[in-house]
């Protein structure tokens, strides 16, 4: 009798669990909600919640509401692995995120084992899509593409003696390697190649060293907090050599950290900023975002996360199923030129996005980033 009661209770719990799950379509977001990239993560959350709200008010997805489940990866690989474990047991179809490549790498195999579709939005390291994972996609371009554009820009600007500085993260090291390979094949001299420790406050030691090498340009492939500090302390040393950055320096806080004067003249390679996107979808979304949150979206990665969410929900709608294999098959082979917020989206067999979305930016106006063709 006792057994019967227990099994009844158990089955009740099970049934109610299944029932609750069938009301919603759950989509995960793994993003840095705390830590030094927290402002990126918070915006990703805002973008996804806005998009989900829009779907839910216009009838939902396959007749159900979409629920976003947010887990914080803190911009840290260890936390990300825990977040991935929690998310993969919470009944999600797919997960959007995350920002840093080393963070994504820590979570990749956890999702892959569960067959959960992961669409990274800021992780550009080449090797993430070279592992043959069937359910991994990304809406951002790869570092080899970015490295090529960076090397091209450096050449176009006529620099012949280049210093390259990274921060030993998967992304920054990858971009530094790619750029340096492209430059070397074009016979441009690399006079310095080393890494700094991210998260510190004082980079005067490395700046003094760099200054001694007398490069034409310094290419820093790390993230915006360090880039801002480098610029700030470079100005203090009265050192005029221009600095360039990769797409992780694309954040308005860079100017605040560096100070307006110190940031002037800093160039970076990046996908366009949200307000510069020429697409109709992007313009509508940016104005929706502004009316919902009272400010413009700052980060292109938040919009790339939005695109991850949009292709995922689009694929669910088209395949009319929550079968993860069917969805990733659709994303790999049938999704062609989807109108994303950041331009047309097509994925290749590896899960990489096809097409060229990089442009060359330069901080010319002291208060905002401006597009340079």
């Amino acid at each position, binding site marked *: 009798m006792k057994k019967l009661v227990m099994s009844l209770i158990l089955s009740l719990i099970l049934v109610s669990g299944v029932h609750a799950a069938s009301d919603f379509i759950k989509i995960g977001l793994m993003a840095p909600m705390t830590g030094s990239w927290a402002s990126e993560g918070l915006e990703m959350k805002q973008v996804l919640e806005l998009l989900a709200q829009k779907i839910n008010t216009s009838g939902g997805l396959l007749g159900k509401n979409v629920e976003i489940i947010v887990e914080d990866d803190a911009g840290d690989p260890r936390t990300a692995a825990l977040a991935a474990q929690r998310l993969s047991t919470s009944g999600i179809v797919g997960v959007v995120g995350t920002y840093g490549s080393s963070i994504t790498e820590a979570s990749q195999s956890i999702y892959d084992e569960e067959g959960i579709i992961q669409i990274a939005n800021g992780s550009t390291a080449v090797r993430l899509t070279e592992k043959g994972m069937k359910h991994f996609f990304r809406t951002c371009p790869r570092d080899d593409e970015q490295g090529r554009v960076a090397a091209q820009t450096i050449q176009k600007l006529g620099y012949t003696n280049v210093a390259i500085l990274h921060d030993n993260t998967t992304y920054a090291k990858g971009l530094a390697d790619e750029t340096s390979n492209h430059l070397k094949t074009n016979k441009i001299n690399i006079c310095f190649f080393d890494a700094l*420790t991210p998260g510190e406050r004082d980079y*005067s*030691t490395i700046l003094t060293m760099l200054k001694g090498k007398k490069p034409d340009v310094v290419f820093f492939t790390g993230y915006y907090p360090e880039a801002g500090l480098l610029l700030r302390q470079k100005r*203090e040393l*009265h050192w005029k050599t221009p600095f360039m950055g990769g797409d992780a320096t694309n954040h308005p*806080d860079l100017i605040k950290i560096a100070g307006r004067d110190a940031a002037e003249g800093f160039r970076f390679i990046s996908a366009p900023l949200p307000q510069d996107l020429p697409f109709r979808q992007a313009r509508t979304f940016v104005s929706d975002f502004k009316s919902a949150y009272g400010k413009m979206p700052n980060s292109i990665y938040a919009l790339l996360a939005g695109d991850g969410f949009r292709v995922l929900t689009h694929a669910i709608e088209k395949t009319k199923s929550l079968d993860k294999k069917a969805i990733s098959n659709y994303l790999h082979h049938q999704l062609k030129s989807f109108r994303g917020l950041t331009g047309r989206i097509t994925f290749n067999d590896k899960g990489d996005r096809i097409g060229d979305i990089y442009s060359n930016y330069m901080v010319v106006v002291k208060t905002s980033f401006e597009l340079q063709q």
Partner: protein
Amino acid sequence: MEQFFLQLTNGLTIGSIYALIALGYTMVYGVLKLINFAHGDLFTTGAYLGFTVLASLALTDHLGQLAGIITLAVMVMIMVGMIGIVLERAAYKPLRQSPRLSAVVSALGASIFIQNAIMLIYGATFFFYPQDILPKFTIGIFGIEIPIMRCIVFMVSIALMTSLYIFIQKTTMGAAIRAAAIDQDAARLMGINVDRVISVVFFVGPALGGAAGLMVGMYYGHINFTMGWVYGLKAFTAAILGGIGNIPGAMLGGLLLGVIESLGAAYISFAWKDALAFCVLILILIFRPTGLLGERVAEKI
């Protein structure tokens, strides 16, 4: 040669901040034999309180630049010192008779508490000190251009450390602190109010840490709630290097660590900077287990 002197000044600036924070670790250890792991977060608190006071009271507009900044620094030091006293009452005093491990766990808990409290109160994003309150020119010493702020950071740290040294060596309270550090029970028998001594230590140490936080915030311009971690770790290392529990040791250890870091980075390998600094620490501890100036054998924490 110019490179060498430039790197030396870089190292001394960084090191003077480490030294200032290391004093907080070493003073508390000296009296209580406890590593106050929350000290790095008190440093962060100083940076945030400075930011708040600066933004809300506009001191530099009312009092002029120099007087404004000095008032700000005094206010921040008093506030962080008060937080230090409250911290001791709440997290360490109830555990004074318990095994030492309990107090260490309590210290780690306090560290997590303060860090997360800052995050919840202020948010996880960066905050920026106003840019225009500090002078930006450089001064030439023997033909080397050094930014004025580096000299100021260095000199303020040295001044604070010197006044602490005088306070410990020349005043009655200082003598009481030294006595309590040697033997608490004997000090109590001599009529010293040990609880008051501990309160003073927990005021002065965090006050210096808070001053360091304010300087880092003003000089480097941006603050976030995790900034105390790196500085706390480095300062703790500096305190061990100089001999924990020993006040001149913490000053020497801090300056030395900064200089080793920047010269090692410049002349051996930049990417191995931290590894080099810790190698030096290990070497020193092999040959002098008590640190450079330490006398007592450092027992396990």
